[in-house]
């Protein structure tokens, strides 16, 4: 809500600049979005009096005006507005002026006719089109007849005021009004506040004889109406129009403007009906019936819901209660009798109705947050009084009351000890009492205890903690001391799971992968790729887009999206890992279980070309090396084995391996299927994904010291031809099993399957290292063991030793 600095000053004697006031409000009550002065940035914009006007000889819509701008000679200005006329006072941007958006106005010629400046519409000097009176939306604005040519226009239009735009939190509905804001400011600045009270002059007959209201008080706890006869519709006086447009509301006519003005002032939304359009003399506040429709003031049709609160006459709904009035009973030319409604509607119904019909109005906003339930009659009276003063209306005797449940004020006990214990302050009883009283609450003190009766308008205050906030903010958060919690000591340590997750990230970064964080919500298809176990997908009920509609059940597809994003931007070498959750759901469960995963993806090369080495494209073995190094870092206890898997649809059937620890599958690695690469529009990419939770849960090897042998090791190389389908694992396993007691390690140093070996064969070469920890090995012992293993290789694997 935009609140006027000048309006505030009418009630509070403040000696602060608008910017300082705004800062104070921000530090003490609610956020301030902006402080603006509409005339800021404008220059040389004055009142002009159109002395004469003739049509432009070469145009069917331009006019040549002679305009008195308070100087010796009038200015000749060419104007295209359809509503410009001789005798008007208008807004003139003089040559050398600046209008809205920092546009500079210069002398010019329009179709050959010199024009010294511009006659302006309100929009051209910075008004939002939404607040310009309808009459002037499509043309220039006409200033009052008593405006003096040559004067700056700003004061005539309220443009020298400063407007403080409050961003009111949901709990502070009271701040959506001048009076509510004044109450807070009075407390903040510790100034007395004198608010004016309405004085209605009733004439005519008793309203009871003219109008009856039937109210469901569950829907409307207070419902009141007054009747004003013989109103004369007219534009509102300038001061009133200025108040409205500076608050962002469009002036319409005196009757409607009064209801809006009262809303701004008291925070109580009012609605003015054309009484003569009612069918009958009875008005009902009820829920809508099935099939009922309503055309609202904005000329939109609504199918009403059975939980919408409506105001209805004998025949049909005439307003969507608390949201917007109906068109049929609206104030229009010819209206003479006005029924003013001042009510409290149940906030939840209003919130839902506003959402359902997409009608978020100034009224609904206030009812949702709650209006001042002690001020319903006062706002009604103030409106009635203004209708007498500004529209010559005759306020009928009395108010018709359909429901009248004014809540009791909240009474809260709190102790000074508690206040200081929670705030960490050393406030005195006088200080606390004074703060609460300055907010308009009544306080009774008894020893350490304060009994606080809260003003009804503050519907956000119910419990001692609410009072603490009031005391703290008015005292000033700046004045609070800054300390750290004391008390019993606590340990701050990461759990072993958290440590392993950190170690995982550090390990993979050390191995050359950058950490990525991708979206966990993806498409239905991508969510179900690279699945490590069967699971139902989990769909969002109302996704924003199909791209982010289903919870991922793999991490790789997100990394492939990332690679595609890089690839589209010509970044060809990408190495990423991601640690994140996947979401598995069992059929019949609504809620998925969450499993920590770790995945990596590399495309291009990990080691780009350099002046001293060629680029080496990533391949299966590089990715395997990374996975193996990572698993070694995690010290998982048990053998890690790699088993070919040709059955994953998204993976290359010949270049994919399951990763097993101690026989349990914890993940896989390999090249993504070329068709998947094509689908993502990426080059060959190698990936892995591991169930990190499984790694976390596995037993780990403890570090232990192994004596380094003082005795020399002996190595023997062995090269052999084996059939293509014999794997390295088979050979190594056999050598390890049959290598004898002194075999320390087996290391593959060559694989060859080129032209020099027979078809269907390959050559493998290993270095075997022997060592005795207790004495120097004799050559014979090694030869013996080596011969034995060579023989087994020949016998068991059909190897030809070379």
């Amino acid at each position: 809500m935009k609140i006027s600095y000048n309006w505030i000053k009418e009630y509070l004697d403040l000696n602060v600049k608008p910017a300082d006031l705004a800062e104070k409000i921000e530090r003490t009550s609610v956020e301030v979005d902006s402080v603006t002065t509409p005339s800021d940035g404008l220059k040389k914009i004055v009142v002009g009096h159109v002395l004469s006007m003739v049509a432009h000889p070469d145009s069917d819509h331009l006019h040549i005006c002679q305009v008195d701008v308070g100087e010796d000679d009038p200015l000749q200005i060419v104007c295209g507005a359809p509503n410009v006329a001789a005798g008007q006072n208008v807004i003139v941007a003089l040559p050398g002026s600046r209008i809205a958006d920092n546009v500079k106005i210069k002398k010019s010629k329009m179709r050959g006719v010199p024009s010294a400046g511009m006659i302006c519409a309100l929009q051209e000097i910075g008004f939002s089109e939404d607040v310009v009176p309808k009459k002037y939306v499509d043309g220039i604005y006409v200033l009052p007849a008593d405006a003096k040519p040559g004067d700056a226009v700003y004061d005539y239009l309220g443009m020298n005021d400063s407007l403080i735009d409050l961003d009111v939190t949901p709990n502070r509905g009271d701040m959506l009004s001048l009076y509510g804001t004044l109450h807070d400011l009075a407390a903040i600045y510790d100034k007395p506040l004198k608010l004016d009270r309405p004085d209605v002059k009733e004439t005519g007959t008793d309203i009871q004889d003219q109008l009856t209201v039937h109210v469901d008080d569950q829907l409307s706890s207070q419902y009141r109406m007054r009747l004003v006869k013989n109103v004369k519709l007219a534009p509102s006086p300038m001061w009133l129009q200025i108040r409205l447009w500076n608050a962002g509301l469009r002036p319409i006519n005196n009757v409607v403007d009064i209801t809006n003005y009262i809303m701004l002032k008291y925070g109580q939304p009012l609605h003015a009906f054309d009484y003569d359009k009612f069918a009958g003399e009875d008005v009902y506040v009820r829920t809508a019936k099935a099939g009922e429709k309503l055309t609202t003031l904005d000329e939109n049709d609504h199918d009403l819901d059975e939980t919408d609160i409506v105001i209805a006459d004998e025949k049909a709904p005439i307003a969507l209660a608390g949201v917007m009035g109906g068109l049929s009973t609206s104030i229009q030319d010819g209206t003479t009798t006005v029924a003013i409604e001042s009510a409290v509607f149940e906030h939840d119904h209003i919130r839902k109705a506003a959402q359902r019909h997409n009608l978020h109005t100034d009224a609904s906003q206030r009812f949702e947050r709650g209006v001042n339930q002690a001020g319903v009659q006062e706002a009604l009276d103030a409106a009635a009084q203004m209708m007498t003063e500004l529209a010559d209306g005759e306020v009928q005797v009395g108010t018709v009351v359909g429901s009248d449940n004014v809540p009791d004020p909240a009474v809260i006990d709190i102790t000074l000890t508690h206040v200081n214990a929670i705030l960490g302050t050393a406030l005195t009883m006088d200080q606390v009492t004074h703060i609460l009283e300055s907010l308009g609450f009544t306080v009774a003190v008894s020893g350490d205890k304060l009994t606080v009766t809260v003003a009804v308008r503050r519907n956000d205050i119910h419990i001692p903690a609410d009072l603490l906030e009031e005391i703290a903010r008015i005292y000033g958060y700046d004045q609070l001391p800054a300390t750290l919690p004391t008390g019993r000591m606590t340990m701050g340590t990461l759990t072993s799971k958290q440590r392993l997750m950190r170690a995982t990230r550090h390990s993979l970064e050390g191995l050359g992968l950058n950490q990525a964080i991708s979206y966990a919500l993806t498409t239905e298809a991508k969510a179900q790729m690279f699945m490590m176990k069967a699971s139902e997908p989990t769909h969002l009920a109302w996704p924003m887009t199909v791209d982010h509609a289903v919870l991922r059940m793999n991490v790789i597809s997100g990394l492939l999206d990332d690679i595609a994003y890089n690839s589209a931007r010509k970044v060809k070498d990408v190495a990423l890992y991601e640690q994140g959750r996947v979401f598995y759901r069992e059929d019949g469960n609504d809620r998925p279980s969450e499993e920590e995963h770790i995945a990596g993806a590399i495309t291009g090369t990990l080691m780009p070309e350099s002046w001293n080495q060629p680029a080496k494209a990533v391949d299966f073995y590089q990715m395997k090396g990374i996975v193996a190094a990572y698993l070694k870092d995690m010290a998982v206890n048990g053998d890690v084995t790699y088993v070919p898997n040709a059955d994953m649809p998204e993976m290359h059937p010949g270049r994919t391996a399951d990763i097993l620890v101690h026989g349990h599958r914890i993940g896989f690695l390999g090249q993504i299927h070329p068709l998947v690469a094509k689908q993502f529009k990426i080059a060959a990419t190698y990936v892995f994904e591991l169930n990190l939770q499984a790694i976390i849960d596995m037993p780990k090897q403890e570090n232990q010291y192994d004596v380094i042998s003082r005795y020399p090791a002996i190595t023997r190389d062995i090269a052999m031809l084996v059939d293509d389908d014999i794997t390295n694992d088979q050979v190594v396993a056999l050598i390890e099993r049959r290598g004898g007691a002194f075999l320390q390690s087996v290391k593959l140093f060559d694989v060859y399957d080129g032209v020099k070996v027979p078809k269907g064969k390959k050559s493998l070469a290993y270095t075997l290292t022997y060592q005795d920890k207790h004495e120097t090995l004799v050559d014979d012992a090694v030869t013996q063991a080596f011969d034995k293993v060579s023989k087994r290789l020949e016998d068991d694997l059909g190897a030809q030793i070379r």
Partner: protein
Amino acid sequence: MSLKDKLSELRQRGLADIKQSSDLKDVNQVRVQLLGKKGPITEVLRGMRDLDAEERPKVGAFANEIRDDLTNALTQRKEELERAVLNAQLAKETVDVTLPGTPVAKGEPHVIQQIVDQIEDLFLGMGYQVLSGPEVEEDKYNFEMMNLPKNHPARDMQDTFYITKEILMRTQTSPMQARTLEKHDFSQGPLKMISPGVVYRRDTDDPTHSHQFHQVEGLVIDKHITMADLKGTLQVLAHELFGDKFDVRLRPSYFPFTEPSVEADITCFNCGGKGCKVCKNTGWIEVLGAGMVHPNVLKMAGVDPDVYGGFAFGVGPDRFAMLKYGVDDIRNFYLNDVRFLTQFTKKG
């Protein structure tokens, strides 16, 4: 010529030859010539048989002296020449030290991770635990136990991805407050925790909105926790993340799960508090929300609000990163352009 004179002359000539030898081969040749079995010294010594018994030891000693001199000179010359060879070799081996080093593969932690880790480490040092909760939450924990009953108007403040009526993507890491409070045994000590994690909102992605982002929730509950403790803790956090020349100010705000509720601003980075476009001329930038835990939240989790109380805060690492590094589009954090990821290399 006496033997002695012969020897003297031999020394003279030998030293001259050694000096003239120009490479190791020469030196070796000279050595063989002078000191070899057929060399002049051996020959001279052989002539000692003819000397008096009295003369013999004197000449012998003199001959040894000369042989030592020559040997030393040879060794010295050899070392000189070897050093020269080595120096020549090293001169040939000179590299251009300005050529780039051989690249090594090295990855970087994500910038958001870096900020989360930094926050975690700070609070670990102050005795907090780090807890993580489910990303798919129950409405009960995400909203109801955070004092946001169904139909609470503040639910509009955070549009939610629902899966079913009761199951949703958590919109905040606050549900870990309720989950932890339910379980914590206060007889074992106060509850001090932070809970970092991913949260989700039903937003359209644009430069300032992301349907997925991060949050770190903090919670301290004990018998004597004050709002001043909250203020001090937030100051420590701001100083840790941004540096201690930044001021912190608290402003009233509204969260259903805290009362009093505050938002914390820090001095604008861009202008140092003078007022600029970044801070909308206020000199301040909003960085987090906090407050004293609402008694209803404690009550619903089975904690007696008359005995225990404390504070909670929630910070957004994405927003921190954007402010700290001037990242102008939040989507950068989730699109993983390598050129973006590798910019944040300063650790510690």
